[in-house]
């Protein structure tokens, strides 16, 4: 047998085997349809398992929350399946679960979504549920109070978690309490207490309109088979003119570095966040930034993880990221480091943040480009993977051939582009640093670094309205 012949040869371990030519990216076609009410429908066939995922995407999220009403978009989404059409919250949950379906509602800064993942033979039974939840929510007072208390309790609980506290304080300091990105999508204790069912109804009425939504259907269906059932499920959805998304005010990034220590007495680790305002998803520098971040803190062998974890052992892991939204979301570098190495870790963070502004080497650049580009076809493996990637096209209005050109765009990134992007967006002399840890142990060392002015706060002070 062929295999036995091969076994006689000793493998050559003197150099690693070279990969063969990569497979071409083979994306399924997006079949664009529309319903009589103007709702755009994207159908993508995927016949591997007998499942279909429907995502009704609405182009409005927490970024559209009105002043003083932070959390309205998120609570609206959460309330959609708490009563809809003639069904109660418990009836909706029971019906979805009995179908073996997953019915979820969600909201980000940029969009809201109702998603139904259902066995294809139960699609006809699942669709009316999806339509009720997305189009006919009833916002019952009793359920609203329940979710309000749940969210207020959650805001209390996050104070236990150093990583959550660090993230919240970081956003607050980078954007200021007046900008929507300064507060998490669920809002604050103060704003949550003021939200009414009328606020949620208003949000729903303004944005859940056919002209402001897209229905994405991915799975074991055909366009010709699924369109009639979609037409009947959404026949009653009469559009009004949707309120167009109002662009957020441009944030004013801090122009001076500051270090804020949030005291968590006796903590064995310090949670560190460093960064500032980053870029919107529409940035022309998307691909250089993707490569830059992969080199800096977006992969296991990235500089931050190699330094803080592999070289020094200060942390279990270190990373960085650009959170790109319709408006400029934050850039951050992050790690949890052992308490007695907090100042050392901070020094190394700044070494890498300054270092990335220097030209990157040829091999490092090639590794990062390959890491993104060669892994890209694998990101479309499951029905859910494929749906999530396609949602990105819808929410950010990216061109239809965006993914076809993605790999070429990654491979075209040059060292000069990476350096220019780093000089523009990684400016450590203006970065905000948040450290949640044991103040009495870490403060002297952090001050001795003389990186920036240092302030110390309690958790309650740091998170007060």
């Amino acid at each position, binding site marked *: 047998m062929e295999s036995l012949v091969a076994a006689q040869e000793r493998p050559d371990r003197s150099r690693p085997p070279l990969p063969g030519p990569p497979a071409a990216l083979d994306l399924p076609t997006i079949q664009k349809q529309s319903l009589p009410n103007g709702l755009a429908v994207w159908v993508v066939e995927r016949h591997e398992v007998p499942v279909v995922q429907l995502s009704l995407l609405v182009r409005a999220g927490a970024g559209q929350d009105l002043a003083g009403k932070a959390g309205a978009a998120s609570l609206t989404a959460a309330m959609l399946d708490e009563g809809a059409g003639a069904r109660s919250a418990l009836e909706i949950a029971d019906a979805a679960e009995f179908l073996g379906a997953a019915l979820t509602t969600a909201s980000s800064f940029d969009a809201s979504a109702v998603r139904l993942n259902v066995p294809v033979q139960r699609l006809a039974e699942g669709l009316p549920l999806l339509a009720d939840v997305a189009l006919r929510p009833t916002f019952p007072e009793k359920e609203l109070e329940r979710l309000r208390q749940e969210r207020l309790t959650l805001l209390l609980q996050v104070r236990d978690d150093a990583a959550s506290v660090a993230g919240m304080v970081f956003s607050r300091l980078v954007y200021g309490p007046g900008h929507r990105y300064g507060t998490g999508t669920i809002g604050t204790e103060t704003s949550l207490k003021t939200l009414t069912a009328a606020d949620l109804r208003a949000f729903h009425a303004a944005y859940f309109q056919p002209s402001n939504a897209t229905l994405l259907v991915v799975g074991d269906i055909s366009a010709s088979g699924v369109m009639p059932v979609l037409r009947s499920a959404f026949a009653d959805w009469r559009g009004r003119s949707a309120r167009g998304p109002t662009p957020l005010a441009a944030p004013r990034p801090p122009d001076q570095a500051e270090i804020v220590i949030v005291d968590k007495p006796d903590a064995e680790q310090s949670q560190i966040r460093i960064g500032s305002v980053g870029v919107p998803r529409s940035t022309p520098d998307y691909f250089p930034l993707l490569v830059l971040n992969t080199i800096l803190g977006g992969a296991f062998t990235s500089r931050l993880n190699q330094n803080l974890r592999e070289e020094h052992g200060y942390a279990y892991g270190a990373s960085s990221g650009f959170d790109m939204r319709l408006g400029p979301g934050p850039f951050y570098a992050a790690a949890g480091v052992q308490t007695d190495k907090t100042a050392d870790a901070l020094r190394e963070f700044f070494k890498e943040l300054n270092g990335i502004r220097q030209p990157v080497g040829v091999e490092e650049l090639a590794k990062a480009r390959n890491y993104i580009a060669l892994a890209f076809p*694998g990101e479309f493996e499951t029905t859910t993977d494929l749906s999530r990637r396609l949602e990105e096209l819808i929410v950010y209005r990216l061109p239809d051939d965006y993914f076809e050109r993605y790999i070429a765009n990654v491979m075209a990134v040059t060292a000069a582009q990476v350096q220019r992007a780093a000089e523009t967006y990684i400016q450590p002399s203006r970065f905000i640093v948040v450290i949640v840890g044991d103040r009495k142990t870490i403060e002297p060392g952090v001050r001795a670094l003389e990186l920036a002015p240092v302030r110390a706060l309690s958790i309650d002070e740091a998170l007060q309205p």
Partner: protein
Amino acid sequence: MRVRWALLFVAMCSLTASGQTAQPPKLDVPYQLFTLSNGLTVILHRDASVPVATINVWYHVGSANERPGRTGLAHLFEHLMFEGSAHVAEGDFDTLLEAAGGTSNGSTDNDRTNYLIDVPANALELALFLESDRMAYLLDTMTPERVDGQRDVVKNERRQSYENEPYGMASLEIDRMLWPEGHPYSRPTIGSMEDLTAASHDDIVAFFKTYYAPNNATLAIAGDIDLAKTRALVEQWFAEVPRGAVVQPIAPPPAVLADVKRKTITDQVRLPRLYLGWLTPRGYAPGDAALDAASSILAGGKNSRLYNRLVYETQIAQDVTAYQQGAALGGSFLIVATARPGHTAAELQQAIDEELDRLRREPPTPRELQRVLNQIEASFYRSLERVGGFGGKANQMNAYYFAGAAPDFFAEDLARYMALTPSDVQAAVRRWLPPDRRVELIVEPETQG
């Protein structure tokens, strides 16, 4: 970590949802199984839906194999498997993979250690080279400095996941309470700080020589692969790895809870949390599937007994979860609930006990059980979509084989659930979740000074 894969997904179909008799899809996962002359068992499965391949190795050693005084050694060892071997310089393991578009990971639990490499299909041979090199030649370049480096990383993993994680220490405490002293499951997989400090280069060398032999491992490869070529490549890269001694099975002391064990600990948290724990059947043993279904009837979704009563109706709890963990040497069942502000763990316990008692007295309704089974069935079909990662087919095929079943046990595994009746669930709750033989752990907020 113990991934109970039935809890990973929610979706899909049922025969009885509305009286239709749609033919359910088959859970076919065709495979080839063969063993090399050095004892390495190999499982191959082709799924060409996207051009990726995964290689997934299970070594049949976990923290249960550790000796007292060396807790955490199996997991520390796992970290060292990524640090290089005779023909792979330190740092090159992941550098080579990333340059080819690949990623790696690993995990350690009580019973086994797994390693996975996900690559574009064209880089399969690179992955086989890396995997075989550390299986054959890890010790050639192992140094005390490498051990020290990962010791610091693992200590920080422990700080991040336990000491500095809200309620993190409770999960270690509950194992100490559930399992008798001397039982391997009573010891933490992450290890104590003291034992991590004590772990030596010699310990690592001895651990490799004892457990990291091809005859104590299985290699599953799945994805867009050519079966014949892959078999030839496996033989080419792994045939030279020397066979090791046979590993002796663990002989744990009997684990029985004779009465109620109670304990209260404090943590830097704002809300009290209650843990109730029982000793239950090991994975795939009679009772395991019924308890898994019971966990969903108790705490899966808004209509589940405990969620509905504690979180939805009375709102005395912020959250409640329940799960059956069927490990190799035994199982455990946990119910965990967090009190809302102004409520106590005692209130939660009383309500939970009333609901458990109701389930002991009368079986769940047919619809309650069917709702759960429909979701479990759905999760099985959806799990066939991914080949790699911890939730992919290759890992599950290794898991089935490790449990003594065929790698394509998917359909039989699902059948364990679909055969359940309401009275099976009731019987399992009566038999395995008694009120007078269990562990009760309460985490109270530290008094803020």
